[in-house]
């Protein structure tokens, strides 16, 4: 009974009305959510058409808006993958925040002893250090699960809070740059090591890294033996053992990779944006990752799409605030409505597809 949506066969040419419906339903869902939201803003005294015009303009209406959307989406892709990969193996890990900040910390300090080196190897080292730190932190949760029977959902959440405490303790203590006055931070990395801005796109190279990792995850999970093995483990550990899979190794490996994704996200924040590790890393990306992964049904390419949607809405929220003086929470309400409607529509569409196949 424990089916992961990832295993279900892709929507391969469902015939006729069902196909149309499965496209139409999510669109209808967005329209429904928009209608409810329109009523909401109308009650607040705003013209809904103005509001929607700004939402489109702010998120997707120009190349500047797209840059905005892509910049905000980049970290969400990786934190989404951090939840989605263990989900293939049947694990729910919600502690991405801790892995992200520790990954950021590792990335921020690892190159400090090597000033003036070539940029590229240093950039690789930063990302790898971030991945290792995040991977180890997630790996701890799955080790505890496999060898002590500790539920990974709660242990990952607890470890996340503990990781953040360690992060604060180190960045505001032992590893603090005394010159960082009112924003306690680690020593800044060599400016030449910062990830470049992608030419022609106007967004930092972390976006490319995130997209590449999402595509790799997609290919590995869908088309390779590894992805299949992981889903078998996720389906039933007993069956997996019967067919000779080393369950512990698969589970721990998958969580390690997932933590690595969150760690890379943290390292990118440091290497592409902040230039140092400080409390600006703790902005809830890890928790957004849970949302992104579940909305995307744990499928890497869908994660990219959902991240773009959320990034775009955040960009629009920015414009809405400035133009209409609507509070920041307005967009949260709209997001909540859209997510709920899309989830239900998606479920109905899926049901229709199944019925057609039968």
């Amino acid at each position, binding site marked *: 009974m424990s089916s992961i949506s990832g295993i279900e066969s892709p929507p391969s040419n469902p015939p006729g009305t069902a196909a149309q419906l499965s496209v139409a339903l999510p669109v209808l869902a967005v329209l429904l959510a928009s209608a409810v939201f329109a009523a909401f803003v109308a009650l607040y005294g705003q013209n809904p058409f103005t509001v929607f015009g700004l939402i489109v303009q702010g998120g997707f209406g120009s190349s*500047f808006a797209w840059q905005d959307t892509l910049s905000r989406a980049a970290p969400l892709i990786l934190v989404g993958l951090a939840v989605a990969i263990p989900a293939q193996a049947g694990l729910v890990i919600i502690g991405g925040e801790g892995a992200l900040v520790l990954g950021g910390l590792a990335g921020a300090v690892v190159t400090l002893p090597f000033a003036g080196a070539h940029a590229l190897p240093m950039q690789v080292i930063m990302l790898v250090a971030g991945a290792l730190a995040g991977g180890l932190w997630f790996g701890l949760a799955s080790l505890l699960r496999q060898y002590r029977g500790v539920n990974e959902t709660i242990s990952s959440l607890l470890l996340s809070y503990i990781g953040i405490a360690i992060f604060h303790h180190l960045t505001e203590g032992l590893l603090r740059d005394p010159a960082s006055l*009112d924003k306690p931070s680690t020593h800044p990395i060599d400016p030449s090591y910062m990830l470049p801005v992608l030419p022609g796109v106007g967004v930092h190279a972390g976006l490319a890294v995130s997209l590449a990792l999402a595509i790799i995850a997609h290919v590995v999970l869908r088309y390779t033996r590894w992805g299949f093995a992981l889903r078998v483990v996720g389906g039933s550990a007993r069956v997996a053992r019967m067919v000779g899979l080393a369950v512990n190794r698969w589970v721990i490996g998958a969580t390690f990779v997932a933590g690595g994704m969150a760690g890379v996200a943290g390292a990118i924040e440091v290497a592409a944006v*902040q*230039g*140092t590790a400080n409390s600006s890393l703790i902005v809830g990306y890890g928790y957004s990752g849970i949302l992104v992964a579940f909305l995307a049904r744990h499928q890497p390419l869908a994660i990219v799409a959902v991240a773009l949607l959320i990034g775009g809405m955040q960009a629009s929220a920015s*414009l809405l605030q*400035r*133009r209409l003086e609507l509070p920041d929470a307005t967009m949260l309400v709209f997001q909540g409505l859209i997510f709920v409607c899309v989830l239900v529509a998606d479920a109905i569409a899926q049901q229709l597809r199944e019925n057609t196949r039968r």
Partner: protein
Amino acid sequence: MTLKPFDRRSFLQMLAAAGSAPFVLDIGAAHAETPLTVGILYSGSKQDYGFNQSHAQAAAALKKQPGIKVIEEERVPETIAAQRSMEGMIRQDGAQLILATSFGYFKPHVLEMAAKYPDVTFAHTGGVWTAGMPENIGTFYAYIFEAQYISGIVAGHMTKSKKLGLVAAKPTPNLLRSINAFAIGARSVDPAIQVQVIFTGDWVLPVREAEATNTLVDQGADVIAAQVDSPKVVIETAEKRGVMSCGYHSSQAEVAPNGYLTGAEWNWITPYLVYAGSVRGGKKPEHYLRAGISDHFVKNSPFGKLVTPEARAAADKARADLIGGTLVVYSGPLKDNKGNVVIPAGVMQSSNDRALDGINYLVEGIIGQV
């Protein structure tokens, strides 16, 4: 040091010309046809009964100025989102002045954007401009520690247990400077007074702030001060426990009608107008703008009903002396709470002494650790 010192006299003249608050500067009248667009970013909610609200109030006052259009964005995280919001304000709304009101916006966000948009003026709360940074950046802050010193004097007069409590977010220099000033003020009344500080570890943590307040009262503190982003919870909890309190950021007198003594408050409209004026006048922004009580950058809340005439008199005298320049809060001999001399006898570090920018100690008489 290639820093151009802040031209205090011209600034004072400007304020004098403007009269007392609300300041009406001659910045709009002549240019009313092309309003100056000012973009303001807040890290938290505009209504937080604290730090962000003190800025939002100044923004509201700024909006009333002729020829000024204000656009605002709240809850902007200190990530790439901050840069994108600033860029949006500039490119989508034509902002010519950006006011970035959170410490964390400075590095790297304001620095990056200022380099990218040299024609736009950026003014940042709390940052420290140094030579080599883009010329279109101004940094401003207010010597709120002067107001906190006066609160300390009031608290020092009012305490019976000779123990004061202070709930603070993090030991950053600007906070340490105020914590120390509070203690120096209180101990100027009676050197036996001790100030116990508890750091909660973050800017907004209501439950832990309430716990810290309870702990301080349990430890015998009978006046509680707060240096967190939204001090409402601390002041309310102190009131519930029947002890006195001193506020921060804005007046919390309403939530503690019995025990509220006074508080240290910002008055951000003054620096806002300075930067609006420099954009209007086509001048370079003041890179390092700092001022205190004497220049209306900060003030104290009106005294609460418990405050005795002696305490009022002492506080008023201290205010007059600070304004007159005869009183300097950080005057030697001053020891930290580990016994090291931090300011030798005979040395005075006046409010604008840059040595205080990086302050990293708690003074003698404070129980706590940086």
